[in-house]
């Protein structure tokens, strides 16, 4: 494994399957992320992260590296302009581990170029997205619009 640049953790009072669905179902991600994550989620498939506003602007793209529901999802993660340049793809690993009736969701982001636009963006983004996801699953309402 590469040495990750960032490791984010949140504990969520929900079953692992619900947390998994909240990562891969466009109608769920739209609620707390204002973006739809779209793919068939099979290893090797393309995925995209697009605005849930009318214009459906695609903001991120990548490939599904590994998908083991409801425990582990590994994606490459890039700006659309860099889709054909694998060296520019960063990598995100989601791990869902049940602990004492709740789940520990870990998001590991690696292969980031220090100081890059992606590096700056995700530092601001992940804490917001994870707090909003936790709020949605535990209280039924997400945080107000994040972006």
């Amino acid at each position, binding site marked *: *494994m590469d*040495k*990750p*640049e*960032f*490791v*984010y*953790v*949140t*504990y969520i*009072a*929900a079953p692992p399957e619900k947390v998994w669905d909240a990562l891969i179902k466009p109608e769920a991600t739209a609620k707390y992320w204002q973006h739809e994550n779209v793919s068939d989620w099979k290893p090797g498939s393309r995925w995209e992260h697009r605005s849930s506003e009318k214009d459906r602007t695609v903001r991120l793209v990548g490939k599904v590296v590994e998908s083991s529901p409801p425990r582990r999802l590994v994606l490459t993660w890039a700006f659309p302009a860099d889709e054909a340049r694998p060296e520019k793809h960063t990598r995100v690993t989601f791990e869902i581990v049940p*602990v*004492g*009736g*709740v789940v*520990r969701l*870990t998001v*590991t982001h690696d292969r980031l170029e220090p100081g890059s636009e992606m590096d700056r963006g995700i530092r601001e983004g*992940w*804490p*917001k997205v*994870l*707090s909003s996801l*936790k*709020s949605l699953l*535990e209280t039924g309402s997400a*945080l*107000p*619009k994040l972006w």
Partner: protein
Amino acid sequence: MTGKYLLAYSRASVDIDRLLRAIANPARRRLLDRLRARNGQTLAELCRHLDMTRQAVSQHLERLEEVNLVTTVRRGREKLHYLNPVPIHEIYERWIEKYERQRLEALRDLRKRLEGEDDG
């Protein structure tokens, strides 16, 4: 939330008093600052240039890990420490409303421009 999850949640979720007590210590804040400057350090790296014993640093890191402000990853024989700002974001969200947030972010950006990037 069903009863089963509620019970477990009260154990696993971080108590806000414990979180604030963990931050209310200059040595622990320094450790968080060092991780913010460079994420993913080992205990030995964190001890360098710090006026604390290895044992003290190790205990502070444990406290920070208990409240989920620090997470660790094992890589071979090394244990790497990461700053996890998610619980701080949850506190922030508790008292700051959407519209205030935009104004506060604008103020923060203005202050940064006027004072330079260094937050001191």
